[in-house]
């Protein structure tokens, strides 16, 4: 009897220790998650703080007279300059005038052209229009330029600051929503540069990538998992597919350069080739995810179908594939998200060029979002820093959307049991 109570006492003593160990283990987990979330939050916050400015652009209100002679000559920027001269009549020296012109964007004239195109009746009339200021004025407006720094060390001269303040006092300078950022291609001028070219390049590349890698990946996974005999050859193929998934992406870029450009003579910098290279990269991901999804389908389903007299193809198409589809789609979208964020292989096939036009076909020269981020991050202008972060926000937005899509698709398919 005492033996039994001693026994239970020993267990009691052990219990306290066990509870403590469990508590400790749980707190480690919570700390780990906390650190991970903190890093994520810091990263997102840093990007947002730097990038949100790019969604607004400084505009100045100018009184422009659409003079017939200059409109006929297509000298739109001339109109801007004339208007500036009229606004600041006290500026007479040549060098000062040149400085004065620099407060407006060199693309301001295009906006005037657009206004004229939309409504030719403005010819000969005088209008007050909001036009984009130059990137330096934009930075000054957003407080990124320190006025206390000596003049020769800052991007904006004292005179420009005076003009800026004067405009400001007249309420002729404002921050407007930066539509151009979403509707324009790349530019040397930060205030004119937009993300649309890169977004289109990425979308076109991803379309090619999806069209190639999804059917190929699914067919490969289905064949290997459901039909291929299990022998040395299929083992070898399996090992190679797994190795392929681990190959650094730049190698696929080199392969694309050698195969698609130099041998097949496909156009350089084209989303078509970009998509093909990205497809090489995503294929192993899709195949591996697809096989895992197929393996997760219970064998009893296959037996049931075979037992009903379904052929192997019917069994796969009617029963196994629909059940594996959610897993396959998840794998595919993860692969696509990887491809969207990939820049190295695209550098190899020339999708890193400075391209102003927004691509509209699969063979137009294009860049992609991550490459655009890289290009802007490399530019010296202060205003590009902001745009780099904004482009990252756009890229993250796409990634989040894709992941949401994956979740929604999975839920939708799952409801069909």
């Amino acid at each position, binding site marked *: 009897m005492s033996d039994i109570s001693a026994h239970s006492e020993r267990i009691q003593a052990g219990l306290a220790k066990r509870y403590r160990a469990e508590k400790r283990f749980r707190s480690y987990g919570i700390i780990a998650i906390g650190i991970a979330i903190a890093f994520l939050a810091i990263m997102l916050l840093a990007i947002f703080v730097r990038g949100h400015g790019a969604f607004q652009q400084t505009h100045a209100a100018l009184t422009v007279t659409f003079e017939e002679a200059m409109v006929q000559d297509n000298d739109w920027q001339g109109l801007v300059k004339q208007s500036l001269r009229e606004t600041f009549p006290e500026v007479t020296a040549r060098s000062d005038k040149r400085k004065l012109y620099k407060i407006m964007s060199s693309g301001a004239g295009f906006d005037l052209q657009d206004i004229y195109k939309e409504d030719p009746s403005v010819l000969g009339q005088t209008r007050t229009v909001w036009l984009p200021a130059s990137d330096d004025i934009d930075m000054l407006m957003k407080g990124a330029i320190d006025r206390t720094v000596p003049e020769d060390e800052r991007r904006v001269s004292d005179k420009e600051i005076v003009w800026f303040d004067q405009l400001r006092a007249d309420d002729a300078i404002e921050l407007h929503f930066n539509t151009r950022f979403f509707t324009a291609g790349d530019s040397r001028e930060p205030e004119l540069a937009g993300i649309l070219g890169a977004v289109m390049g990425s979308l076109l590349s991803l379309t090619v990538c999806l069209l190639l890698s999804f059917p190929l990946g699914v067919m490969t996974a289905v064949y290997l998992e459901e039909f291929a*005999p*299990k022998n040395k050859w299929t083992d070898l193929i399996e090992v190679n597919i797994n190795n392929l998934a681990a190959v650094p992406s730049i190698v696929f870029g080199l392969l694309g350069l050698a195969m698609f450009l130099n041998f097949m003579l496909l156009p350089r910098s084209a989303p078509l080739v970009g998509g093909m290279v990205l497809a090489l990269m995503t294929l192993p991901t899709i195949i591996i995810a697809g096989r895992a999804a197929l393996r997760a389908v*219970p064998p*009893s*389903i*296959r*037996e*049931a*179908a*075979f*037992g*009903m*007299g*379904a*052929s*192997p193809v*019917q069994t796969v198409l*009617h*029963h196994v594939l629909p*059940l594996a589809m959610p897993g396959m789609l998840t794998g595919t979208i993860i692969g696509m998200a990887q491809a969207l964020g990939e820049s190295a292989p695209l550098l190899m096939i020339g999708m890193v060029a400075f391209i102003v036009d927004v691509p509209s076909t699969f063979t137009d020269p294009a860049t992609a979002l991550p490459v655009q981020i890289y290009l802007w991050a490399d530019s010296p202008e202060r205003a590009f820093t902001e745009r780099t972060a904004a482009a990252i926000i756009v890229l993250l937005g796409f990634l989040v959307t894709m992941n949401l899509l994956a979740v929604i698709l999975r839920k939708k398919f799952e409801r069909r*049991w």
Partner: protein
Amino acid sequence: MELAIHTEVSDKARVDGASSSAPHKVTAQAVDVYYGDKQALKNINLDIPSNMVTALIGPSGCGKSTFLRCLNRMNDVVDGCRVAGQIKLDGEDIYARGVDVVHLRARVGMVFQKPNPFPKSIYDNIAYGPKIHGLARTRAGMDEIVMTSLERAGLLDEVRDRMDAPGTGLSGGQQQRLCIARAIAVQPEVILMDEPCSALDPIATAKIEELIDELKQNYTIVMVTHSMQQAARVSQKTAFFHLGDLVEHGDTTEIFTNPKDERTQAYVTGRIG
């Protein structure tokens, strides 16, 4: 006598003279089955009569399932499985060249140990077989097949108002009856059942046994069971397998009350198993 303590042989098990002379639906001659190098069945000779329940009994791993799966060639999809000898359905060798397994499996249906309805609606579960075999021309024809199959499986009243609900949402016993309904929807001649009640509770088991007893009017049934009571309750013929051999077969009454081989005797009295 001592045996009766373990196993009551019901009236159903007694075969009258007329039906025992009925033609044999399936005959197996000198069947050997190998999994790779390992021989799972040795020289099996067994005749399975029409419109009766034949029970396959024996200790686990003795090859009952293997034999059952030979009868509709389900072993074809198992890697490394080889079948030698002859198995005839209505006098035709089902392993002969040119025999279509799709057609064979429409004639020889199967119900598995674990209920395995498709993850689709109850209606679609039943309709699947008729659909792939092209048995119904119209939607009304399909409805008819689905209703009669569920009716015969004794499930119709329980699912009439939820034909669109998932088959996987039914209880275990209902799922197994759904699988039986699915099998009979293609109007097979033979139904193979591999331990159909082993995953079910006693009440569900009783329902299935009752169903099997009714089904034998129209179908030839071959059933694997690990329960000797069940074999005694529902079967007319019994075959006893042991380590890949067919030790003894004959009328269920004979096997349970008067076994000739001592291994059979040991098994039915519960000494080996």
